[in-house]
């Protein structure tokens, strides 16, 4: 074998090894990526579709990933971009901003509706199903940030990198998103009685 062709063979083998390593690393993160997918999706089926689209795209464009950088953030950037494309299609009135209330609103509303005065009893009026249902009502710009930071445990800086927005925007969307979430939860918790 000439020197050129053996170098070529070595280069190909090296590329294949890198790709397999990339694929294995990406699949090992699937459970963590799924938590975010499920958080930003309205249903399990939607989350599963989103996961498949995300991984199909990741495997196709593996060469654009820089080894040694944050693969979890890279995967979630693909996922949130795909989800934004869908969200924009589904959103009927993009201009209408949801009403948000102050941070005590949820507590005040449950207390007023139930007459409960103990914190534990007020909390008992809420369930994980309420959270999931309320999250689905939060517009995706806000929901993505809340899911990444409050469910996915990402820092502001990581969320900013994933969503390609400034850190200040992450913080303002997080604060507003949490308030919108609580307002949606108040409607569910008080209606459900």
């Amino acid at each position, binding site marked *: 074998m000439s020197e050129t062709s053996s170098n070529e063979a070595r280069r190909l083998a090296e590329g294949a090894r890198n790709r397999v390593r990339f694929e294995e690393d990406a699949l090992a993160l*699937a459970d963590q990526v799924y938590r975010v997918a499920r958080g930003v999706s309205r249903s399990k089926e939607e989350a*599963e579709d989103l996961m498949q689209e995300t*991984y199909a795209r990741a495997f196709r464009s593996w060469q654009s990933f820089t080894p040694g950088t944050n693969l979890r953030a890279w995967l979630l950037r693909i996922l949130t971009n795909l989800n934004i494309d869908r969200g924009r299609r589904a959103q009927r009135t993009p201009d209408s901003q949801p009403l948000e209330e102050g*941070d005590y609103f949820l507590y005040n509303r449950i207390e007023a509706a139930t007459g409960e005065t103990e*914190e534990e009893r007020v909390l008992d009026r809420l369930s994980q199903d309420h959270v*999931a249902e309320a999250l689905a009502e939060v517009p995706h710009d806000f929901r993505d940030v809340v899911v990444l930071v409050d469910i996915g445990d990402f820092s502001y800086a990581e969320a900013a990198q994933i969503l390609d927005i400034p850190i200040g925007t992450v913080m303002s969307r997080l604060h507003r998103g949490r308030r919108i979430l609580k307002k949606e939860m108040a409607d569910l918790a008080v209606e459900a009685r």
Partner: protein
Amino acid sequence: MSEVDLCDWCEEVLQPYLDRDLSATDAATVRGHLAACNWCEKRYKFEGDLRRLVKTSVTEPMEPALKAKLANLRLEL
């Protein structure tokens, strides 16, 4: 600030306080108020409990069938 104004102010800084984004001076003012105001203290405790509820709301694990589908999306060598 009057006590009622302090309650309003504490509602306003609830999130940065729990996120530890508040200055040391402001955080001390919050702690001082919470020690004296049961009304705000309950609402702060509730917010912490609510955050734990939100964090654990997505608990359903990924279906093994989905995991297999993802693995199958790998490109052929």
